[in-house]
């Protein structure tokens, strides 16, 4: 089973989205902030990262930049979930997919599958 790192500061989102991902047959690890996220990335080596963009302290964009620059996990596909999608190319280029939240299960699965496919390549 593929491992998904879910990053969201909102516990309820983590709960519900985590539940959906598990139903979709993913292993889910959850982080509420960037530090936990980095720890879990190192510990679980997720196949794909699913992050909220707007969070206190460090946003999803900060985390994406951090991962992209990481020598080991730089290629890990990152999917962003946001209500207000970014417009600038630099930010967009950080992510494999930017999903408008809340998204349907099919869209999520499609995005995850695509990201995983790319990760295997």
């Amino acid at each position, binding site marked *: 089973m593929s491992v998904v790192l879910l990053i969201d500061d909102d516990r309820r989102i983590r709960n519900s989205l985590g*539940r959906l991902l598990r139903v979709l047959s993913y292993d889910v690890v959850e982080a509420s902030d960037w530090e936990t996220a980095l720890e879990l990335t190192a510990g679980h080596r997720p196949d794909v990262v699913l992050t909220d963009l707007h969070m206190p302290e460090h946003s999803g964009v900060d985390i994406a930049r951090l991962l992209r620059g990481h020598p080991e996990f730089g290629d890990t596909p990152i999917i962003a979930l946001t209500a207000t999608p970014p417009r600038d190319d630099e930010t967009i280029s950080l992510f494999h997919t930017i999903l408008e939240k*809340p998204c349907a*299960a099919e869209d999520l699965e499609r995005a995850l599958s695509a990201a995983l496919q790319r990760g295997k390549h």
Partner: protein
Amino acid sequence: MTRIATWTASHAGSAALRGDSAAILAPLCGLLYYLAASLELALRGPDGVPVLSPQHGVLVALLMVTPYERWWALAAAVVPAHLLAGWNSGPPVWLLTWQALFNLGLASSISTALRLLLGQRHPFDGLRDFSQYALTGAIAGPALLSVFAPDVTLAWLSGNRDLALACWQTGAVASALAILTWTSWIYLALLPRPGGLQRRTPQQYLEALMIAAALVACFQLAFVSDTEHHAALYLFFIPLLWQSVRFGVDAAAMAVTLIATLASAAERIPHSVRIRDAPQVAVIDLQIFLIVMTLIAVVIAIVVDERRRVAQAASESDARYRAIVDSQTDFVCRSLPDTTLTFANAAICRYFGMPREKVLGVQWLQFVPSDTRDELRQALGRATPANPTFMLKHPVTLPDGRTGWHEWTNTAIFDSEQRLIEFQGTGRDITALARAELALRQNDERLSFIARAACDMIYEWDIARGEMWSSSGGERSECAPSVRQVSVESWGNYIHPVDRDRVARDVSQALRGSATTWESEYLYIGRGGPPRWVRHRAYIVRDRNGIAVRMIGAITDRSDRKNLEEAHRTLERFARLAMVGQITASIAHEINQPLGAIRYNAEAGLLFLNRDSYDKDEFQEIFDDIRRDNRRASDLVTRLRELLHDHELRLDPIDINDVIRDVVKLIRVESRQRHVQLETQCSDLPTMLGDYGRLQQVLLNLILNGMDAMATQPEACRRIAIRSIRVGATRIQVEVADRGCGIDPVTLPKIFDSFFTNKAQGMGLGLAIARSIVEAHGGRIWAENNPDGVGATLIFQIDSLGSKVILSARDNTDRHGARLN
């Protein structure tokens, strides 16, 4: 003299005699009778014919003034006196006794007849009474009774009818003459009348003396002088009539008595009074002459007396009238048509400080200020015979130069040809009244102008009488405002139908209760015109039993203020929307979060369903989560609605810490985007009465203001601390401390003023609205620079006790347009 006075005098005279004992009365009467009887004997004519019978006159006069019950004393004295007087004259005792009894009978009969006829009236008061006296006492009485005279009876019995007739004739005439002369003066002497001799001046005594001398001279010429002077008889009448005219009936009576007596004694009957030459007939002629003379003198005296009394009465009445008029404090005057004064009472003279003779002849218009004279002349000219009475109220110039006020009721007097003769008027000084009236009117005007200046209508409602007075200020009339009476019903009609029932209900409820004040706001339409918002404040006066008896109030036009409030509210609404606009992202995020969670749970649930088997517990969890998130979303929406909803201040029991937490949630994304760290520090606080949404607004404003203040600070330093603490027993204080640039101490007191801003894009309304909301809660808001010199703290304090809050909030309602329901 009036008959009352006569009666009094008569009564007094009777009383004087009644007071004397019979022992005095009898000898007195006897003496007088003796002298009179002696005189009668002396006065007998050459053939023993009686010319004058003074004893009859004396006796009639005495009997007339003596009460009946004392007559016996007179009767007892008469017989001996008569016997004594006639003892040496020749007749026998029985004849003398007979004569005495006859005299007594004649006198008493005549006295009785006169008393019955005249009653209490004085015989010399008027012609009518005197004619009764003369006809009864002097003519009928002696004529009828002399038939029973002893000499007549004896002559008749002896068969000498001619002698009897002659005796009857002379006896009757002698009695008549005596009663006309002697009775008159004795009666008048015994019952002296006011205005008689006792009040004569020395000049009058001299005049009387001259008259007496003239009389004596005429008497001498007519009766004594050997040479007969026919003209002397006529000359006689000159002093006699002079006397009658000048000295009245008593003097005339004395004079004629004297003349008659002297003439009788003269033993000489002048040729000029004789009609026939027979000696006996000549006596009759003399007697007739004397009777005529007496009648003329007495009648003239009576007529003159009567006139004099009437004149005196009129003069006394005039004096009394004058005294009454002069004693009045009101003014009484008469004036000619050109206002020349012909009469002025003492009050007028006193008022103008002038003697009467100076006042009379002056035109009273001169006392009136010149600018009023034409108006008064016109008013005087309007009097007509049909409407002669009119009232004048006009100013007068007082002796000291000041202006007073008079009020006159005048009556114009017209002659038979309807020509104006004079004006009669009564007036009074109303200066004090006029001044008081003027002061009242000025006061009233002043009040009304004040009322108008304040766009107010002031009124007083006398509930007990159902009367209402109101200033016309509310009608905005241009004419001089005044207080006028209005009906209570019309009052109700001044209120717009929309509010009429409500106001009526409120008023009657207030009156029934125990409150002493009442206030309301409603749409006022007055007597037509556009409806206006008014505030009606009233004071209710209650009697001892607490029953409302009066209501005094003022109605203030609030249209402008109401419009201002509307504008204020609109501004506030826009400011709120603008504020919310600033945190849209935050709000969207806060709403999206639970919606997202719900969506994911729903998707998960659907996927579970598509499986062959699923865990029931998992489903339970999904639904529980969905419900929780839904609640979270709807709570948020409720809070947002609270924040955005345009309602009037609503006080509910709230926890201010909930407000803080919600606001922090709402603004979380915003603060994140602005890199501002929000810290909260909530103490344990009592529940307070407050408007949740409005307090959210306050807090949001304060936090956004803090964020703005830190915009230029390094991101790491941007921190806002929100703290709630309890101050004292009941007050709750919320502080929002930023680490920004602080506030210039000069502008520190102004930052809560409307349209005060340091920000390029700010409207300067956020903090002003925050203040109005806090003050509407009865609280206060202020700002302080932080003690460490970095940033500022905005603080508001609200009392958690509802009653205080409500009271304070009501006080602040006016200023800030927020209202409590």
